[in-house]
């Protein structure tokens, strides 16, 4: 149950940071609605942010494993 809580906390953390980054990147001056080009930008931004998160996770884990192998 604690594991589930941590997984949820991790997903929420990712969501919050991603929302913040993509809002800053895609919404210049906030208008009366989320227009089409803003939506496209957010969609791309979140896909790239998750790519980046995956790449970083993999790089971090492979580094951890290399260091453990060297110990």
């Amino acid at each position, binding site marked *: 149950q604690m594991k589930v809580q*941590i*997984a949820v906390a*991790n*997903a929420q953390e*990712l*969501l919050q940071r*991603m*929302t*913040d980054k*993509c*809002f*800053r990147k*895609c*919404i210049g*001056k*906030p*208008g*009366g*609605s*989320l227009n089409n080009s*803003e*939506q496209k930008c*957010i*969609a791309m931004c*979140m896909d790239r942010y*998750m790519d980046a*998160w995956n790449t970083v*996770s993999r790089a*971090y*884990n492979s580094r*951890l494993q290399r260091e453990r192998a060297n110990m």
Partner: protein
Amino acid sequence: PQLQRFVEVEAQRQRAQLLVHHMTELCWEKCVGKPGPRLDGRAEVCLVNCVERFIDTSQFILNRLEQSRRARPVLSESAAD
């Protein structure tokens, strides 16, 4: 159960307040330049739009994530083993 309900409601209230603080900072940066003797109408409109668009963005991301998760699990594993 009544105490638990109370704790949950208060936790939810606290998350909402942190979100308000976060949006205040973010929208203050986007909408308010040099602080003047009063908040002009343009900044006021910008702040309201900023809150609305931030929540829109948040919901847009959640919905899109939900759709792609239905197709294939994305946030399946934790970052560090």
